[in-house]
C-alpha cells in the first residue's frame, strides 16, 4: 500500500502528464477545460491526502531522492516538509480554482491554453518541493515558459508590452541566479552537490546578490516591481491570480528556503537595508493602491505592499516573523487569487473593471456581495481573519526586532483598511454604475465563475477559525530556516 501512495514526485507528474495528454489529444476546447479542471482537482485531492497523512514534526516526507546527473552531483530530490506542505496545499487549491475559472470563462482558451496552465502547476509543485538547488531552478525557470504564452497570446490589449517587460526582467534575474548557483556549488568543499541542506554557510556576497535579485524581481521587492502592474492588468484573470497568488510566492519562498540558510552572514550583514526596502514596498504599494482607478490596479499595488510585509517577516529573522511570513504567503495566495478571479468575473458580467463604471453590485446579488465582503475584509486583515493571524505574527516579529519597524509597519494596516474598503464600496455600494446597469440582469443564482471562488473563500474562513492548523505544521521549519542567519546577526 505504502509504495502505491502518492508522493511528491507523483504530485508533480500528474499535472505534467495531464498537460502532455491535453496537448496531444484532439478534444474540443470545452472538454479540454473540464479535463484540465479534473486533473487539477485530482492534484488537490492528492494533496488533501498528503495533508492528512503528514506527520507534524516529522521533517521531510513523501520524498524521492535519485541520482540524476551523477557527475555534476545533481539529484532528483523532492520531498515535503511542513513549509512545503503549506505551499503545495495552497498551490493545489489556487490552481484548481484558477483552472476551473478558465474552463468556465472559456472564450478564446484552447487546448494548449489548459495544457500550459497544468504545466505551470507542475513547475510550481516542483519548485515548492525541491530539495535540490537544480530542481528548484528547473521549477523556477519552467514557470516562465507557460506564463510567456499565457500572457503573450491570451492577454489583454497591451499584452505584448506586458509580457516582454515581465519575461525579460524575470529572465535576467534567473540567469544571474543560475550563475550564482554554479559558483555556489563550485565553492563548496568536497564532492560537488546541489543538495539544499548541504549548501549552507556561504559567505560570498556576490553569490548572495544573484539569488537576492532573482527573488526580489519575482516577489517583487521594491524597487524591482516595475514589471508587475502591467503583467497583472494584462493577464487573463486566472493567470493574474496564479501570478500574484503563486508565482510571486516562489520569490518569497526562495528567500526563506534558500537565501536565509545558505547565506546567513550576508543576510545578517544586509538585513537592515532589506528591511527598509520591505517597509518602503509595504507603504508604497499600500498608498498607491488607495488611488487606483480599477480593481486590478488596487490588487496589483496591494500585492506589492503585501509582498513587502512578507519580506519584512522573513528578514526580521525570528520565529514570529518567519512563521508569520510563511503563513501570510498562504493567506495572500488564497486572497489575491480570489480578488483577481472576482475582478475577472465582474468584468465578464459588466464589461468593465473601472470603478467609475461600477458600483451598486450588492443590490440583488447577495452571494456576490457576501464573497466580495469576506474577501475584502480578510485582505485588510480584520482581526479574527487568518490574514490577521499571519500579519500579527509578522508585526510582532518586527516589533521584537526593532520597535520602529513594528510600529511603522503596523500603520500599513490602516492603509490596507482604506484601500480595501474603497474597493468594496466601489464594487458593491453607492449608486449603481453605468456598466452594471448595462450588464446582465441581477443573477440570484451564482454562475459557475463565481462558484470557482467559493473554495478559496471557504479555505480562508477555515484558516480563520484555526490558523494553528497551519502554524503548527510550518513552525519547526521556519524556525530552522531562520536560525543560522539569526545567529549570525547576533554575533
Amino acid at each position, binding site marked *: 500500500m505504502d509504495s502505491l501512495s502518492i508522493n511528491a514526485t507523483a504530485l508533480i507528474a500528474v499535472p505534467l502528464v495531464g498537460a502532455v495528454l491535453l496537448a496531444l489529444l484532439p478534444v474540443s476546447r470545452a472538454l479540454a477545460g473540464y479535463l484540465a479542471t479534473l486533473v487539477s482537482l485530482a492534484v488537490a485531492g492528492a494533496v488533501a491526502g498528503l495533508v492528512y497523512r503528514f506527520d507534524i514534526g516529522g521533517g521531510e516526507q513523501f520524498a524521492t531522492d535519485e541520482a540524476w546527473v551523477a557527475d555534476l552531483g545533481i539529484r532528483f530530490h523532492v520531498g515535503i516538509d511542513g513549509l512545503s506542505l503549506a505551499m503545495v496545499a495552497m498551490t493545489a487549491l489556487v490552481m484548481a480554482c484558477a483552472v476551473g475559472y478558465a474552463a468556465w470563462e472559456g472564450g478564446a482558451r484552447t487546448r494548449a491554453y489548459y495544457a500550459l496552465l497544468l504545466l505551470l502547476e507542475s513547475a510550481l509543485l516542483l519548485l515548492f518541493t525541491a530539495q535540490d538547488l537544480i530542481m528548484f531552478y528547473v521549477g523556477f525557470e519552467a514557470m516562465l515558459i507557460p506564463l510567456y504564452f499565457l500572457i503573450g497570446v491570451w492577454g489583454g490589449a497591451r499584452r505584448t508590452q506586458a509580457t516582454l517587460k515581465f519575461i525579460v526582467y524575470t529572465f535576467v534575474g534567473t540567469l544571474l541566479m543560475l550563475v550564482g548557483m554554479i559558483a555556489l556549488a563550485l565553492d563548496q568543499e568536497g564532492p560537488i552537490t546541489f543538495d539544499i541542506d548541504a549548501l549552507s554557510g556561504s559567505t560570498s556576497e556576490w553569490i548572495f546578490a544573484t539569488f537576492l535579485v532573482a527573488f526580489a524581481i519575482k516577489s517583487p521587492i521594491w524597487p524591482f516591481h516595475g514589471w508587475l502592474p502591467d503583467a497583472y492588468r494584462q493577464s487573463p484573470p486566472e493567470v493574474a491570480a496564479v501570478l500574484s497568488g503563486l508565482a510571486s510566492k516562489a520569490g518569497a519562498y526562495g528567500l526563506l528556503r534558500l537565501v536565509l540558510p545558505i547565506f546567513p552572514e550576508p543576510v545578517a550583514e544586509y538585513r537592515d537595508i532589506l528591511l527598509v526596502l520591505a517597509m518602503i514596498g509595504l507603504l508604497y504599494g499600500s498608498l498607491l493602491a*488607495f488611488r487606483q482607478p480599477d480593481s486590478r490596479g488596487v490588487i496589483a499595488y496591494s500585492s506589492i505592499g503585501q509582498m513587502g510585509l512578507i519580506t519584512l517577516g522573513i528578514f526580521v529573522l525570528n*520565529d514570529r516573523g518567519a512563521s508569520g511570513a510563511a503563513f501570510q504567503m498562504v493567506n495572500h495566495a488564497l486572497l489575491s487569487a480570489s480578488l483577481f478571479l472576482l475582478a475577472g468575473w465582474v468584468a465578464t458580467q459588466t464589461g468593465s473593471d473601472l470603478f467609475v463604471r461600477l458600483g451598486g453590485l450588492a443590490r440583488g446579488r447577495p452571494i456576490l456581495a457576501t464573497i466580495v465582503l469576506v474577501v475584502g475584509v480578510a485582505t485588510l486583515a480584520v482581526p479574527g481573519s487568518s490574514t490577521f493571524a499571519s500579519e*500579527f505574527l509578522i508585526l510582532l516579529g518586527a516589533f521584537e526586532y526593532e520597535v520602529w519597524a513594528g510600529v511603522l509597519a503596523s500603520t500599513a494596516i490602516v*492603509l490596507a483598511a482604506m484601500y480595501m474598503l474603497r474597493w468594496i*464600496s466601489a464594487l458593491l455600494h453607492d449608486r449603481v454604475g453605468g456598466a452594471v446597469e448595462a450588464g446582465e440582469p441581477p443573477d440570484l443564482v451564482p454562475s459557475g465563475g463565481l462558484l470557482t471562488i467559493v473554495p478559496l473563500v471557504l479555505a480562508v474562513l477555515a484558516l480563520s477559525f484555526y490558523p494553528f492548523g497551519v502554524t503548527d505544521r510550518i513552525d519547526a521549519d521556519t524556525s530552522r530556516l531562520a536560525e543560522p542567519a539569526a545567529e549570525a546577526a547576533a554575533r
Partner: protein
Amino acid sequence: MSTSGYVWASFAAPLVGCVLITLLADRVPRRVAGLVACAAMLVSFVLGVLAFLDLRDRPAEERVVADTIWTWLSAGDFRADVGILFDPLSAVMLLVVSGVGFLIHVYSLGYMHDDAQERRFFAYMNLFVFSMLILVLAGNLVLLLVGWGMVGLSSYLLIGFWHHRPTAVAAAKKAFVMNAVGDVGLAIGTFLIFRELGTVDYREVFAGVPVLSDRGHLDWACGLLLIGALAKSAQIPLHTWLPDAMEGPTPVSALIHAATMVTAGVYLVARMNPLYAESGAISNLIVVIGATGLVMAGLIALFQHDIKRIIAYSTMSQIAYMFMGVGLGAYWAGMYHLVTHAFFKALLFMGAGIVIHALHDQQDIRHMGGLRRFLPRTTILMWIGSLALVGIVPFSGGWSKDAILSSGLEVGGAIGWVAWVAGIVGAFLTGLYSFRLLFLVFYGESSPYAADEAPKHTDHGEGPATMLWPVYALAALATVGGLLQIPGVTHYMTDFLEPITYGTGEMVEPSVAQEYLTTAAAVAAGLLGSVLAFRLWGRRPAVIPERASTGLAVLPERRFLWDELYDAILYRPAAAASNLIRRFVERPFFEAPLDAVGPASRLVARGFGVSQTGVVRLYALVFAVGVGALLLLFMVQA
C-alpha cells in the same frame, strides 16, 4: 452543565443564529430571519443568566472560570488560545450584551418590518453580538483584539447597512478606519506586553505587572491599550466617527453605538485594572480626557438638530463619565454606569426610533414639536430616559454617575477635583440638552411637517408591540437599575466585582457622606439645566435659527472642527501622497523605463533579424566558419 459549558453555549448561540440565517437565506420567509435572531439572543441571555448565577453563588476568591477549547495561533514560544475568562467583570458584560441585545433584537422585529433586507440585518446583528461576546469573554489579549476588530467589522456592516446611501457608506468607512487606528494601538500594546512578559494571557499579564513596571514599560503598555479604548469608545481625540455612525438603522445605534460596543473601552480599562492601577500617569490622563470629553460633547449636543446625533453626543459624554470612573480607580463605578447607561441610553434611542418612524424617517428636531399628542406613551418613556440620563435620583443614572463623581472626592487632589467639577458641569449641560430635546420634540406647537406626517403614521397606535414592549422593559430597568448600588443601602456592584483586581489592590470606594453630598450637587446642577431648558425652549413654539453662527457658538455647532482637522492631517495627505508618488516616482522611474524594454528588445531582435536572410548557403558558410574557428581554437590549445 458546568459554568464554562453555559458560557460557551451562550457565546456560540448568536453565531449559530447568524450562520443559520445566512444558510437558510431565501428558503424561508424573511420574517423568520428575525425570529431566528431573537431566539438565538434569548438562548444566549438565558444561558448567560445561568452562568452568572453559578458565579454569583461562589465565594469571592473562586469567582473565576477559565477554559480553553483550542490553540488559535502559535509561533515559537508565542501562543494564543481560544480561551475564555469568565469572572464577575465578563459576567456583567455578558448579561448586558445578551440581555439588552435581546430586547433590541425584538424591537428590531418591528422596526425593520418593512425593510426588504431584513435577513441581512439580522445576520449582521447576530454577528455583532457574537463578536462582542468574543471581546468580553476573551481570556487573553489576542482574542480580545479579535473581538475588538470583529465588533468594528460588524459595526461597519451595520452603519453602512443602507448601502445605497453614499453618506451611510462614507460613515461606515470612517468608523472602520478610525477603529483600525485603535486596533493598531491595541496590537502594539500587546506586542510590548508579549515582548516583556512572554505571554498574552490576562492573569499571567496581571502577575507580570511588577516586571513591566520595573522595566519602565508599564505606562507605555497602558497608553497603547488606551488608544484602542479611545477609538472604540469614541473619546477625544478618536471620537469623530460616532455621530456619523448614526447613519445606521436606529436599533443599531441603540445596540452598538450606545449600549454595548462603544463602552468596550471602559471594559478594557476595567479589565486591565491591575495595570492601570499602577500607572498613575495614564490613569490621570484618562480622567482628563474624560473630563474634557464630557463637557465638549455636552456643548456640541446643545447645538445639534438631528435627534440621533444629539443622543450620540450624549453617549460620548456619558462614556466620558465612565472613563473618569475607571481613571480614578473606581472600576466598579465605571462598570455600574456602563450598566445603567445601557438601559437608559438604549431606551432613549429606541424612543427616538419610534419618533422617527412616526414622522416617516424625519430626524431633524426642527421638523418635530408637539408630538406628545400623537405619542403619549413615548413621551413618558422619553421622560424616564431623560431623567435617568440627567441623573435625577432615584432614576438609575443618578446613582451610578454620582458613584463616579464621589470617587473623585475620595481620590482628592487636583485630579479628583477636576473629575468632580467637570462632572457637575456636565450634569448641568446634560440637563440642558436632554430637556431641550424633550421639549422641542414633544411639547410646544407641531411643526408643519410633524402636523402633516404624525397623524398618518400613528393612527394604529405608536408602534407594534414588538417595538413598544422592549422599550417598556428598558424603561423599567432605567428606573430601578439604581437598586444595584445605593449608598448605605445596597452594594451589589462593589461586592460582586470585588475579585476583578486579582489580588493586586483595592478599588476606590467613596464614603456614604461623599456620595450623598455629590448627589445633592449633581441633582441640583441637573435640575438647574432642566429648568433653564424649560425657560428657553419649553413654553413657546419652537423656533431654532438655521445657524447660530455668532461668536463662540460657532465652535460647538461645528463640533470643534475635529472633522476638518482629520481631513487636513490624515485623509488629504494620504491621498496627496498617493497621487504624488504615482506622478513623480512610479511613472517616471518604474513605468517609463520599463516601457522601453519592449522597443529595446525589439531593436535587438531586429539586429539579429538581419542575419535571418533565409539563404541556406549563407547559413552553411557561417556554420563552416564557426566550426573552423572552433577547431583552430582547440588545436592551438592542444
